[in-house]
């Protein structure tokens, strides 16, 4: 938390200007921490800050109140400089009950702001949280942190005294008190939240009145209460001009598909079976039938992917989405699409594993499954978005490549990108690359496996086209004619052709953009949701004067053609991943470079600090 004295502002209390701050709201699943966090995000966005968020909820639907596993939290970092991650350590923590304190205190910086809802620190909650004695009575707490004990529940009730609401309804407003208070502390504008409250409870004026009162009460409390010595300003960040919105990964994936559907004017059949954290893609798409996206909630993952394959055979864009366990079930069917050489887009929103694992936590351990999770030689294209907003472009690109090369394309997102948000500069849809989607209708010289010389793609034919009736299937077939063939040399030729087709996608990959000098001691190579943490770490290392650069891969299969030579320009290569070392194995096998991995598989994003340390160690080793 870097400070710099700023000219005292209008408000009574002194205000300090910060470059960035990391805040976490934590409480019971029922306490509305997600709403609170999202609202504060919007306030910061309005104030022009760059932002990165990290929601975190329990696997249970409504875990019993007060329990440790029932704690729900929302973290964000916002700043006047580029913000790459939700942040490692907290500048401020709001704990609505003892369980929240127990679970999250460790992440609060020494000297950090700690706001607790004293009303919740009673017998039952304390025992549920496993506190022998009330931690608030422990003097260390107040000495180690800037502890603010606020009877949020009480003050909320008081503010609503005369309103015709029952106790439960009044209590439900308390999160807005916390929001108001924190908004004052960080001087973020209340306006967007006031608007939101009005929209949200439009049907119920009393609720509007109540929540607004409480929000303002919280704000006023900060201003007047003795306990807060100062508050903080954070200037707008330098961000490219344009219209922004806050975007989360899964919605961006869905909208990327919508953009592709609009561009190609080809319907999308989206076959999916619900699974955390992929379900919200299905739910988002189901709200946009105007785009001719036909969502199909299938009986299982196999039906989900096969329905997509059937749709592609019919001349629609077949898409399916799931998470690791579901993707494992789709392997055989993806192989069919490889053999039938049909376009197919597969979203894998990775989560903690193996098996059921940690359904609501994030991970990057499906890369090998994406490449090899099928029988025999079954090559497909693999892409990975690097931020929530990037999901939009990756989804669109996946459709483009699937159609252009008549090949399955898998997109590896993860639980962090899926639910995490960032301020996102709206793209101009017209500027998106064209998607060459045309169906063959010409009878003359037609063969089902005739190939485009540039892409090796076979023709896409819509059933219903007179004269092009043909039969395909999963058995090996003769090239060009598509007739069944067990002929040895033909099989070898087809295996190579299917591989070459995927290899040719390399023509589509733009030159690698290197963050930093093109040669040096250490190159950090990453993919997927670790982009923010890696970039932040590398930029810190660079500021420390280290000869470190980074490259973030959005194309994982095929790899960028210029990757090999890029790697060789550095003494050492570091590959941070939230897995046991998957991309690093691929780089070693592909380029015989002694790349080393930094691997932590905890279900949570990697931290900037730990990556920085890994970098520094390697820089030492390089010397």
């Amino acid at each position: 938390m870097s400070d710099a004295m700023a000219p005292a502002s209008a408000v009574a209390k002194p205000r300090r200007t910060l470059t960035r701050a990391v805040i976490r709201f934590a409480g019971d699943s029922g306490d509305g921490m997600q709403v609170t966090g999202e609202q504060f995000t919007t306030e910061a966005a309005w104030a022009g800050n760059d932002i990165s968020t990290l929601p975190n909820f329990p696997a249970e639907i409504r875990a019993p109140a007060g329990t440790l596993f029932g704690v729900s939290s929302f973290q964000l970092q916002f700043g006047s400089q580029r913000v790459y991650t939700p942040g490692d350590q907290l500048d401020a923590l709001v704990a609505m009950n003892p369980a929240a304190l127990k679970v999250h205190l460790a992440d609060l910086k020494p000297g950090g702001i700690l706001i607790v809802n004293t009303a919740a620190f009673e017998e039952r909650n304390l025992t549920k949280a496993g506190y022998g004695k009330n931690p608030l009575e422990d003097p260390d707490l107040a000495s180690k942190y800037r502890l603010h004990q606020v009877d949020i529940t009480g003050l909320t009730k008081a503010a609503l005294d005369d309103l015709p609401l029952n106790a439960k309804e009044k209590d439900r407003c308390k999160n807005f008190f916390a929001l108001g208070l924190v908004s004052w502390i960080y001087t973020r504008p209340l306006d967007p939240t006031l608007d939101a409250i009005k929209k949200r409870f439009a049907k119920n004026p009393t609720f509007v009145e109540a929540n607004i009162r409480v929000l303002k009460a919280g704000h006023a409390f900060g201003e007047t209460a003795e306990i807060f010595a100062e508050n903080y300003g954070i200037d707008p960040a330098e961000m490219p001009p344009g219209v922004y919105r806050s975007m989360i990964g899964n919605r961006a994936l869905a909208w990327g598909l919508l953009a592709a559907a609009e561009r190609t004017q080809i319907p999308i059949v989206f076959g999916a079976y619900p699974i955390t954290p992929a379900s919200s893609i299905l739910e988002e798409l189901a709200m946009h039938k105007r785009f001719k996206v036909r969502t199909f909630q299938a009986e299982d993952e196999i039906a989900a992917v096969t329905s997509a394959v059937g749709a592609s055979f019919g001349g629609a864009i077949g898409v399916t989405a799931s998470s690791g366990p579901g993707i494992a079930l789709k392997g055989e069917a993806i192989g069919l699409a490889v053999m039938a050489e049909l376009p197919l887009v597969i979203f894998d929103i990775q989560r903690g594993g193996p098996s059921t694992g940690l359904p609501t936590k994030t991970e990057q351990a499906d890369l090998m499954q994406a490449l090899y999770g099928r029988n025999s030689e079954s090559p497909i294209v693999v892409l990975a978005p690097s931020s929530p907003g990037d999901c939009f472009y990756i989804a669109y690109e996946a459709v483009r490549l699937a159609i252009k090369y008549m090949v399955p394309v898998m997109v590896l997102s993860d639980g962090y990108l899926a639910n995490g948000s960032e301020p996102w500069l709206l793209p101009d849809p017209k500027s998106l690359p064209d998607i060459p989607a045309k169906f063959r209708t010409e009878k003359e010289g037609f063969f089902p496996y005739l190939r485009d010389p540039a892409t090796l793609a076979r023709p896409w034919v819509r059933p219903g086209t007179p004269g092009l009736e043909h039969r395909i299937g999963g058995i090996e077939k003769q090239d060009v004619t598509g007739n069944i063939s067990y002929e040895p040399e033909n099989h070898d030729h087809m295996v190579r052709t299917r591989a070459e087709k995927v290899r040719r996608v390399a023509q589509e990959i733009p030159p690698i953009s290197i963050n930093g000098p093109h040669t040096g001691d250490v190159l950090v190579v990453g993919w997927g949701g670790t982009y923010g943490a890696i970039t932040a770490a590398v930029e810190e290392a660079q500021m420390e004067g280290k000869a470190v650069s980074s490259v973030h891969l959005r194309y994982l299969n095929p790899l960028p053609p210029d990757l090999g030579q890029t790697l060789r320009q550095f003494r050492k290569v570091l590959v941070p991943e939230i897995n046991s070392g998957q991309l690093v194995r691929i780089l070693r096998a592909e380029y015989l470079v002694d790349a080393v991995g930094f691997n932590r598989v905890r279900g949570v994003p990697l931290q900037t600090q730990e990556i920085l340390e890994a970098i520094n160690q390697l820089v030492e080793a390089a010397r």
Partner: protein
Amino acid sequence: MSTVKGAPEAASNGPRLTKKDFESDQDVRWCPGCGDYAILSAVQKAMPDLGIPREDIVFISGIGCSSRFPYYMNTYGFHTIHGRAPAIATGLKLARPDLKVFVVTGDGDGLSIGGNHLLHVLRRNVDVTILLFNNRIYGLTKGQYSPTSELGKVTKSTPLGSADRPVSPCSFALAVGATFVARTVDRNIGHMEETLKRAAAHKGAAFVEILQNCNVYNDLAWNVLYDRESKVQHELRLEHGKPLLFGAPDDRRGLVLEGVKPKVVSVKDVPASALWVHDETDRSTALILAQLWAPDYPIPLGVLVNEAGQPIYEDLVLKQEQKVIADRGPGDITALLRSGETWTIK
């Protein structure tokens, strides 16, 4: 919208097609003597009468001897993977409700690995015509027992006899809500043809069990309907609104009800009014009939249930799509991107 072209009017455009038009150029790779040959020719025979242009017809199959079927039809075809044809067909219909889609499957493909997809395609009443070739064996993998094999079946994989009770394809289809369920047999091309035409004409999921002979691994599994003697005795031809009669001309038998239990009687022993009359529109009737089998009962052939007017999955989905487009116009990505909370940075 989801109305498939065809029926007389469609037939009118273009010259009328013949069986030949539906024969592909691939050599047929079934064992000599296989019942599949008869089914293939019955289907090819029936096609022209559907009056649907060849290019609007698609055959989808899974894996099995039966599932080789699409290669031999000169239409569009997709020989997919084991058990998944119903799901592939569902996706295809969502993409292309205008196509006439047939699913060809086997007792293993459709009821063993594919049982769940069959359940759901029938439940959803997707507008596809499903032909299940039931030879009570896994043919392609060279003779292991199947979910329709009789208890105690001795096969390669069950040298001491199988230990599981068979499932009845028709009972299954009826219970999960199939709106058209029929049974026919490979040795009766005429009945097959007529049954196939009725199935193909049905709007919604039509399920046809075709009793088929695998002369290599399960020869004469349906001999009760092949052997002239027993055929006469056991074959019960279902006719809507007609009493349930069967047996030799000189010894006609019929079914009467005792509560919900059918009982076999000799027609001369009961007044015609007492005979149980077939009602295609009643699922309960079909559920009871589907349980009947020789020797104690006759074997019903023909249409068990034929329920018109049930909602069709892809119809409803497309109606929703058309309605929102009619009400709010087609999707506009630019507008969507700017919807909700946005802010501008100068």
